[in-house]
């Protein structure tokens, strides 16, 4: 039987990012747990779609690497974008609720204001929990976590009952479990950044029509993508290409000792993805405060109206 320490170690390597982010960040907030569950569901549907397309190709005899990998990558990209689009719709509903709450408080009597203040606190809490950064991380955790569970978890479960340790030609020096665990680790981390970039890209596409951009759109380190529609498209394209590149790199496992190419390349792509996210969006990740889509704008306006000392906002 595959030894328990090996199983445990590989599981921790593969599921470490997902579990740590889930329990340390996401688990405390109910809204983020809902986002994790929904994004995991979207991954499941995307995997089903990709596998269905592969099954169709396989049924007609076109069972090769292209039909195996390409539909999976494309379906995951599409469903990531669909998830973010759904998130925007839900966010709009939440923003409408908060605006109604604000409008009610402004026009109510003193008695209503007392109740309004408490509800506004609840609204503030709700608003603070659902911003692009926290929801992007949560969605990445859900999407990537389910990705790791379905692909690597299946392997882990199948190997747990076997006698002996499986080695493959692509990596004769380390067990197949460990090799796949590294793949799962890299993809889990990249899934989080891909989802954050998808949030960034879809938000810019939502905020800016063709040709328009944020008036304060200064390009530089941390804002290379830029606050514009083209910046959003660039981010989305990067997600698709980096995902495709990562999957293509794993094709080197076809060859003997291919893991000597695959593992360093995957780690390199992971680091490059993280760097690109940081350099491209770190300073401009959150939506600009003067945009109509910004929930925090509502808070700023209400705070300016009601609080005795207005807080500093970006506009100030």
């Amino acid at each position, binding site marked *: 039987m595959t030894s328990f320490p090996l199983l445990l170690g590989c599981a921790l390597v593969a599921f470490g990012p997902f579990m740590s982010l889930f329990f340390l960040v996401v688990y405390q907030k109910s809204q983020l*747990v809902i986002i994790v569950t929904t994004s995991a569901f979207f991954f499941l549907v995307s995997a089903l779609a990709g596998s269905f397309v592969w099954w169709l190709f396989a049924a007609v005899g076109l069972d090769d690497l292209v039909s*195996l990998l390409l539909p999976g990558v494309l379906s995951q990209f599409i469903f990531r974008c669909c998830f973010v689009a759904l998130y925007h719709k839900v966010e709009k509903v939440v923003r409408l609720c908060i605006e109604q709450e604000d409008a009610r408080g402004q026009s109510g009597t003193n008695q209503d204001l007392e*109740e309004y203040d408490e509800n506004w606190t609840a609204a503030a809490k709700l608003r603070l929990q659902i911003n692009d950064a926290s929801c992007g991380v949560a969605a990445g955790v859900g999407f990537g976590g*389910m990705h790791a569970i379905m692909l690597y978890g299946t392997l882990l479960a199948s190997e747990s009952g076997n006698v002996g340790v499986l080695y493959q030609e692509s990596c004769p020096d380390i067990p197949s479990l460990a090799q796949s665990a590294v793949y799962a680790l890299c*993809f889990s981390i990249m899934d989080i950044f891909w989802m954050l970039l998808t949030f960034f890209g879809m938000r810019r596409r939502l905020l800016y029509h063709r040709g328009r951009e944020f008036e304060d759109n200064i390009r530089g380190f941390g804002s290379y993508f830029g606050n514009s529609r083209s910046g959003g498209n660039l981010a989305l394209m990067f997600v698709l290409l980096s995902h495709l590149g990562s999957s293509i790199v794993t094709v080197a496992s076809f060859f003997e000792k291919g893991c000597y190419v695959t593992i360093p390349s995957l780690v390199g792509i992971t680091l490059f993805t993280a760097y690109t996210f940081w350099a491209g969006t770190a300073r401009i990740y959150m939506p600009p405060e003067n945009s109509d889509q910004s929930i925090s704008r509502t808070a700023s306006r209400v705070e300016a109206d009601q609080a005795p000392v207005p807080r500093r906002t970006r506009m100030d």
Partner: protein
Amino acid sequence: MTRSRYSDHDREEEEDPGYARSEGIFRNTHQEADGGSADDSGVQEEGKALSVSELLYSSSSYYAIAKPVSMTMMLSALSVVYINNEETIENGEAAMANAYQVFSTDGSGGLDTLLLSFANSIVMVSVICMMTFVIVLLYKFKCMKCLIGYMIFCSATLLGVLGGNLFQTALYVYHIPMDIISYYFFIYNFCVVGVASVFWGQGIPKYITQAYLIATAVILAWHLSYFDSWTTWSLLTMLALYDLCAVLTPCGPLRFLVDLMSKDDAPEMPGLLYEAELPPEARRPGMPRGAKGSKNTNYGGKQYGSRNSRGSDDDEIMASRDDGSGNSGVMDNRSEDGSGEEGPLIDIPLAIASVYNLPVLVIPHHSLATMSQGSGGSDGPSNSPLLASNGANPMVPENPTPAQLRAEVTVRLPKDGGRINRVAKRGKKVYLETDRQGKPKRILWVDRTGKVFAEMRGDDEDMDEQNSIRLGLGDFIFYSVLVAKAAQYSFATFAACILVILAGLGGTLVLLSVYHHALPALPISIFLGVVFYVFTRVFMEPWIAQVLQKPYYV
């Protein structure tokens, strides 16, 4: 009995005339405060607007209920996979087939097997339906001793016999030595504590009760997983359809049960519902948030003026004569002349009215005969009232008998004080005292001797009792059966089914927040589970196997 619905405190909300479900709480609150003024926001669209508190409540409800459901499903899957071997599965299948299947199937697949499995499922669901009607009839005619006795017997049998079978199988599979005395000692204690925690509950921490409810679901799911695959999946499908009809159709037994349990004096039926606590900031829409003169009351009935009440640590309050001191926690309304706006009226026992020095205005018709009887030690009904009040009621005796102390009188509550509402608790008529913000302070009741007893309630206890969501134990069981059966096949189907059941649960909660009445919890999750099980098995698993062959990764 499977009671699979969300009990979202519909009882209180349905009885509250001020709570309109479809429009959100803000509109209601304004109408009550302003006497029906027009909606001031003007932004709400019909059927679209959700309030912030509803959003928070929905998300917290999902979070609170998803945890125990996930835990139950995982424990069931682990127990089915690891507390079994080929021999036990074979023996279990044979035993279940002999006990439950009317039409024998060979499990070889094909249309015949499918049709026979559905036929067996229809028979089983029909029996469940008939049993549910019997239980509804028992509940309707308040045969609570019979009903609760039967439920205690079932629960004890489940924990003792079926739980013992599970334990015995674990000992057998893992070759754990145990003598028979220790075995029966353990099972007996497990069973007794379980029954006590589920049906009695007092003095037992809530997590113990929740753990036993989860254990009940796991044990039953483990046994039901012994059905062969065809029977299991067809049974789950038929149960989902049955749940849909039973809760939503007018003639459904579960619909009857929900309506009966929603009534004001409906006795509680323990043992069927898992209650999960919500965080304090997620309050049910309609619950007062601490506003002055809270517009909504949680327990239905009329709206009363609030009252300033002092807390008291006494657990027992003696009914007292009007000696001017009393143990009253209520602002003495003798200082109020009753001029200007007046507080509302309520019928409460004379003993409680005397404790709080509330002026008796009128003796209700049903209490006249009792009040006109001679009081102990007095010459007859006294013309001087027991309590100082604005108008003396000649029928109120000076030295009331226990029967007179229990009889109801009409009193006027202070305009700006707390409230007293009549509620039903464990089949008993009690009175809930709340402060002016609507926060429950204590529960009062009058015993046979006319003494007033008060049960003090801590803040946390109040929040727990009021701020929770309930899910039927049947839902836990059949979710677990589905996941356990999927886990018996492969890990991928197990993971997919767990996720889609949680997604279905979320979808049901969304519908609950939209429609605001009891909904079946099984259909969406079970249908999604069955569909995704099939798709995962047919499409995704071969794809995953192909991807991991070298291994690649996508």
